[in-house]
């Protein structure tokens, strides 16, 4: 722990007008791009990094942190309002967020998402600020065998999301895993299933597949519904009575366990790289679903706890991703990797000496993160009203426009029309799966985890010399495997 005077000086650096301005700009930009399907905070940060070169290091990094945090909440806005997640992290938010919006409380649903997001984020930031060093040591202890066990544990949460048919759920999971094997194989680097398209060498793009299956398929369905219903008035926002759109303290307090659980799951999975925020959100949702509705509507029909659980978890991941970054210089996610490159451009080398050589800057960054959380809350209140107003346009406007945004977003983030084509194919597959009753969400999670799973499997077998039973020499891994088995049993209890 550095001298208290350095800590205070760092915080003082953060709380300047210039810094405040850039954090605000970052948060506003992040919320905007997060809300547009396909363009997420990652894309926005990548565009912004060269421009930050001219800025003071702390200002530059504060701005990028603002973009990242704003984007976390931004993705939830279209997920709730029109059932199409703006970023893959927000996929789980559609489950209860959109039903509540349809029930006439869109502003209430987005508000709950905002409060949960900011709470989860703040909790994980505080953990980061106070415990970064010991927790970073924890992530070093996680070798390939432990990561493989953690992945298997993550897969086990899928059993909580499988719908009424076990076989169909398993088929969706296996198919997702199969899609993840497209591209170079992790052990030998040989290309697989690329059919002459070199864009597939690195695997099917996560963004293209997720936006296609979750957003575009839904847009197609809504276009069909709009045609059948005939010319529609504007999307109903329910009653305009402000009281109905408010999230009362009692309601927020009623979600405290869901939020705390989400923050804990998110912080832990953020500190240990490899699982990602999308899966964390689903894990949190799955766990909260099991603990009861708390007197609200059923899960999947607009339960506030469902929204709170997912949003606090995915936001907490992002804060905690900085634990391995600042503690040991290892990025826990693409967003964290982008922050590393911003650090490096400014001549700051993340790593073991960072707290000794750059303590003042790090505490400045912490100050900026807390400031960004506050800004997220304030600006979020404005932008959720703004978006709720935008979608008052009739569906015949919203959905064609949203489809164009998906096209452009995926075009930009995958670097070409091939990604857009992949998005369209994914949308069609997603639609057919849904029509035949196969759970798309399960497919997506298996796909997200798949590439890392195969690599961890390959690494683990090298370490274990091909003998799976040698896992008994890795107690952490063994414990996680047992936990996975318990989770499967716990989550599938009560399904016929």
């Amino acid at each position, binding site marked *: 722990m550095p001298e208290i005077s350095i800590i205070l000086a760092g915080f003082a650096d953060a709380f300047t007008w210039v810094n405040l301005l850039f954090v605000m700009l970052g948060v506003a930009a992040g919320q905007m791009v997060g809300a547009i399907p396909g363009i997420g905070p990652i894309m926005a940060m990548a565009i912004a990094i060269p421009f930050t070169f001219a800025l003071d290091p702390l200002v530059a990094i504060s701005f990028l942190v603002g973009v990242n945090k704003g984007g976390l909440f931004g993705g939830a806005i279209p997920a709730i309002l029109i059932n199409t997640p703006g970023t893959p992290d927000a996929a789980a938010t559609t489950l209860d967020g959109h039903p509540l919006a349809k029930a006439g409380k869109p502003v209430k649903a987005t508000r709950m998402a905002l409060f949960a997001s900011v709470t989860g984020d703040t909790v994980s930031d505080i953990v980061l600020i106070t415990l970064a060093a010991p927790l970073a040591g924890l992530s070093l202890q996680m070798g390939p065998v432990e990561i493989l066990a953690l992945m298997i544990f993550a897969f086990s949460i899928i059993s909580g999301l499988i719908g009424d048919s076990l076989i169909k759920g398993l088929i969706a999971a296996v198919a997702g895993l199969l899609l993840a094997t497209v591209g170079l194989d992790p052990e030998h680097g040989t290309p697989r299933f690329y059919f002459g398209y070199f864009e*597939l060498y690195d695997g099917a793009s996560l963004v293209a597949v997720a936006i296609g299956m979750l957003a575009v398929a839904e847009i197609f369905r809504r276009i069909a519904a709009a045609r059948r219903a005939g010319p529609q008035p504007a999307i109903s926002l329910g009653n305009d009575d402000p009281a109905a759109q408010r999230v009362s303290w009692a309601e927020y307090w009623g979600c405290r366990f869901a939020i705390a659980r989400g923050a804990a799951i998110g912080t832990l999975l953020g500190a240990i790289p490899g699982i990602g925020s999308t899966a964390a959100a689903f894990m949190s949702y799955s766990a909260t679903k099991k603990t009861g509705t708390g007197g609200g509507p059923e899960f999947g029909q607009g339960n506030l706890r469902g929204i709170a659980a997912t949003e606090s978890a995915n936001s907490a991941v992002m804060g905690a991703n900085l634990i391995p970054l600042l503690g*040991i210089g*290892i990025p826990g996610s693409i967003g964290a990797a*982008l922050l590393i490159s911003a650090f490096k451009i400014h001549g700051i080398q993340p790593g073991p000496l960072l707290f000794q050589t750059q303590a003042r800057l790090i505490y400045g960054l912490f100050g900026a993160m807390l400031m960004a959380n506050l800004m997220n809350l304030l600006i979020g209140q404005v932008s959720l009203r703004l978006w709720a107003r935008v979608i008052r346009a009739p569906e015949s406007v919203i959905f064609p426009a949203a489809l164009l945004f998906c096209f452009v977003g995926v075009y930009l983030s995958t670097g070409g029309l091939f990604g857009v084509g992949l998005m369209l194919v994914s949308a069609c597959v997603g639609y057919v799966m849904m029509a035949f009753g196969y759970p798309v969400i399960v497919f997506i999670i298996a796909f997200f985890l798949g590439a890392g799973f195969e690599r961890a499997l390959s*690494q683990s077998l090298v370490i274990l010399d091909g003998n799976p039973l040698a896992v008994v020499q890795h107690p952490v891994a063994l414990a996680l495997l047992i936990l996975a088995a318990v989770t499967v049993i716990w989550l599938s209890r009560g399904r016929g």
Partner: protein
Amino acid sequence: MKFKTILAALTATAISAGAAVADWAPSGPIKLWIGFGAGGETDTLGRLIAKDMSEATGWDIVVENKPGGGGIAMFTQLATVPPDGQTLGMGVTMPVLVNLTVRPDQIPFDLDSFDYLNTVALAQLGIIAKADAPFDDLESFIAYSKEKGGALMAFDAKPQELLMNVINGQSDAGVKLLSTKSSAEALQQVLGGHVDAAFNAGAHIPYLDSGEVKMIASANASRHSYATDVATVPEQGYDIYVDPWFYIAAPAGLPEDAKEALSGAISAALASDATKEAIMNSMHTEPSMAGPEETKQMLVDGLANVGTLFGK
């Protein structure tokens, strides 16, 4: 704008020593394609160069990411656009050379499909181990591996695996190789004690300073600027190395004046203090600007070297 262009041309001439005064100018925005996704080293480098080039020359330079197969997707597309100097591509030699060696019939281009403009930098690749490991160089590492019945070593690209296979073949070291996604992940495995050694391209440098990691060898043909006392793999008795160069190319058939103007502008950008500093900061290596001829030669030699790695 005109004045700026002339000024840039002058600077370029001054720096690339002897390049003709370029009266070539692009007829619209120049696209600089990056063969990797946003946020990687190539992307950061490319954007810095583009920013500096357009400031110096007044040209409008647009950076686009075209990820896929370590640059194969981008170069495949680059080979098909007209050679008018309006489209350039930046990549790393290794993935391209490996694919041209292993599966030439599947790759729709070869070295002659491009005109080479300039090198950007050489990635410095080291072999590292934890500071308290009971070995300090390749020889003692090999002895350790034999004694242990196969030490574990992490790598993150095919040529590194091949280099180690050659050493395994010549010494019966029996080192077991673990494929990781990135230098950072390989470093994490070393620090966490999950592997005995690893290849690393820069992420390890702060740990050298803090004394948690030591370097066993440089895997390049030359020693590293930050660790001149560590011998290279060839110096330690194995005639093999890996030299991944960042470089910029254009479709083949580029007019001579365009080639000179572009190459000169890239050299000028690399020589600017800001870019130099950023390259030093992010990659711990000096920028290099070899010019068209030497860049081409470097790729030809590189292809032969990769052939050796694969035993072809």
